[in-house]
């Protein structure tokens, strides 16, 4: 069967008896949990990646096999629990998938998350195609259970979203049943316990490095000794095509690195080149170990690699690369209600601190109505910071704009900041509520009242939450063409000099039909609910 890398993760997780998968939608990782759920796995969307990782750490503390998925910037959000989970270790297994996006097909940066493995001290695997994704998942679980440590499973867009042939395997024995084993000194990281935990971590890494020297995850493709190439991940595939005669050391377990194996390989070829996408992680580590190798020119750290670029790297070609003609950019759907909001913001010449979602497209023509977009939830903090320092005539025009899913993700703490440190002339937050996590493909979130699998569950009512913080001006409005209603409300809030939250609510047009179905199912469900179930 032909599977995408994401589908292969999900299939392996099912076959390996993973008890719980949690994450937050983020291209190119989103489909992992969607498929896992379709295959019958227990998959959950968490409000954000930090919570997702904490939930899966909990599951792994309980002795179960757990899977946490996110895109590269998501790991920034989850990094706090990540670093300390390396110290605590786990009882079961914990696989953390970081789906990186070199070239930024759909992200705000192209950070290279291999660095996290080094910084946090975690074992890391890098599969090159869907078959390896599937096979490496089982090995990742073995590593995690043997050394009782989370494993960073690092993928990139071309591995996640390319479809390649997968032969599933007959699975060995399933997981042991979950059960709690008290280990206070191992799990409670007060300094007295954390100090020995760090030493234990370094000891584990030394043992894993030794094991890695003979691990089948790394292999040598035989070839001409005149050219040796060290590579990992999708780059291996490009290398095999760009230089079919070269001898290749394909690394699959890329932290801690098998330095003896690398030394031996480099010593056996006349010329040794490291071909990697993104940061010069491998090249720096190998040179630090005293092994002279060629890297790539700096120009090749931008964007993803492909066969032509690898050919250029091997020829040390630093001439300017041909520019690709631009494709047609995406834009807000014609009937999207957010168009009304952006027109109003433009009309009032607002300074707009924006956020991440479909509405980020408001930065493009014809609106050009977003002035900043940094990371999830930043719209609140950035808007407030601007309000605190700008002269009044400018400060009064500052507005923060955020989506419903992004708000639950990391806007709530920004709203608390707004109440706790209010700017002198108030502030206006617009929550664009289309009842879905749209940009990543219409997933549910805690504000929709439905689980990942679209079943009814506890719901965060955004206006109630805002009011509970003591904000008096909280409005819910459905933006409608030609009425001027939204414009009038925005004007009133901007002129009030008070804190205001405007919830612009109308379901995303692309899922309007689906929503009707879910609502109908929910009515059937709640008709037979026992007392005490969550209120509709």
């Amino acid at each position: 069967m032909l599977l995408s890398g994401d589908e292969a993760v999900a299939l392996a997780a099912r076959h390996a008896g993973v008890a719980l998968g949690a994450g937050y939608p983020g291209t190119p990782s989103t489909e992992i949990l969607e498929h896992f759920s379709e295959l019958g796995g227990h998959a959950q969307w968490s409000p954000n990646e930090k919570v997702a990782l904490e939930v899966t750490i909990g599951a792994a503390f309980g002795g179960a096999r757990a899977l946490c998925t996110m895109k590269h910037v998501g790991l920034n959000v989850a990094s706090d629990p990540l670093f300390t989970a390396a110290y605590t270790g786990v009882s079961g297994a914990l696989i953390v998938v970081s789906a990186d996006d070199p070239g930024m097909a759909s992200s705000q940066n192209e950070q290279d998350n291999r660095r996290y493995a080094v910084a946090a001290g975690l074992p890391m695997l890098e599969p090159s195609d869907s078959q390896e994704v599937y096979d490496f998942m089982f090995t990742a679980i073995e590593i995690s259970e043997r050394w009782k440590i989370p494993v960073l499973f690092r993928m990139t867009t071309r591995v996640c979203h390319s479809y390649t042939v997968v032969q599933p395997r007959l699975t060995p024995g399933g997981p042991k049943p979950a059960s709690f084993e008290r280990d206070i000194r191992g799990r409670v990281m007060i300094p007295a316990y954390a100090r020995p935990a760090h030493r234990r971590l370094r000891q584990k890494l030394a043992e894993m490095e030794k094991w890695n020297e003979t691990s089948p995850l790394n292999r040598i493709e035989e070839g001409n000794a005149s050219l040796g190439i060290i590579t990992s991940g999708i780059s291996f595939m490009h290398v095999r095509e760009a230089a079919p005669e070269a001898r290749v050391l394909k690394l699959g377990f890329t932290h801690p690195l098998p330095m003896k194996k690398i030394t031996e390989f480099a010593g056996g070829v006349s010329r040794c080149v490291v071909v990697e996408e993104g940061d010069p992680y491998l090249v720096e580590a190998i040179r630090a170990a005293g092994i002279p190798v060629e890297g790539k020119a700096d120009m090749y750290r931008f964007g993803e690699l492909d066969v032509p670029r690898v050919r250029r790297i091997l020829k040390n070609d630093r001439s300017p690369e041909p520019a690709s003609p631009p494709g047609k950019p995406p834009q807000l759907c014609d009937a999207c209600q957010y168009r009304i909001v952006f027109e109003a913001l433009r009309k009032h010449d607002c300074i707009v601190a924006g956020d991440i979602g479909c509405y980020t497209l408001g930065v493009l023509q014809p609106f050009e109505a977003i002035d900043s977009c940094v990371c999830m939830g930043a719209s609140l903090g950035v808007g407030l910071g601007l309000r605190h320092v700008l002269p009044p005539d400018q400060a009064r025009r500052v507005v923060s704009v955020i989506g419903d899913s992004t708000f639950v993700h990391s806007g709530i703490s920004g709203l608390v900041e707004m109440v706790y440190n209010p700017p002198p002339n108030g502030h206006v937050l617009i929550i664009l509520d289309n009842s879905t996590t749209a940009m990543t493909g219409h997933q549910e979130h805690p504000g929709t009242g439905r689980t990942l699998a679209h079943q009814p569950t506890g719901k965060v009512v955004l206006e109630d939450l805002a009011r509970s913080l003591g904000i008096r001006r909280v409005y819910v409005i459905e933006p409608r063409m030609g009425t001027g209603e939204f414009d009038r409300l925005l004007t009133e809030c901007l002129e009030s000099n008070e804190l205001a939250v405007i919830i612009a609510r109308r379901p995303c047009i692309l899922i309007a039909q689906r929503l009707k179905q879910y609502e109908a199912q929910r009515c059937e469900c709640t008709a037979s609910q026992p007392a005490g179930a969550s209120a509709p």
Partner: protein
Amino acid sequence: MSKVINIIVAGLGGQGVLKGTDILADVALRAGYDVKKSEIKGMSQRGGSVTGDVRFGERVFSPMVPAGEADFLLVLEPTQVEPHRHLLQPGGVLITPDAVPANQLPNRKTLNVALLGALSAHLPMSEAQWLDALRAGFAEKFFEGNRKAFRIGREQQKVKSPGVKPEA
């Protein structure tokens, strides 16, 4: 390394570009080839440009067709021809909506299938294998319409390039 056939399908979101690559990958798999398919997802629902790569042969490594090495380029949207032309190798085959007279198609939505029909005239897979892939790739009620569109594309292509032989 034996020859790999490189095919790129391009168009705008909503035109069935990725669906086209699904069918193409499926028919190649049915014919016993190693297949890799690659796409950049995410902008399709919002009218942005969408491109999908399909590569098949005895053994395929990189999932992406190198620029300038596509053997076949299918473009579903006239405005997307120029931005993608550089992906085609010299002598490569370009298949655009002109390959099929618009009024002959059962409906506009079958354009992607019709262009696959045109492409099929150049490829070694049998019509039966293609029809199996079409049947498997869509709900049963669409099969008749798809079969018609596919055959229109295939026949038209044979008329336009009478000497065309499927690649060995």
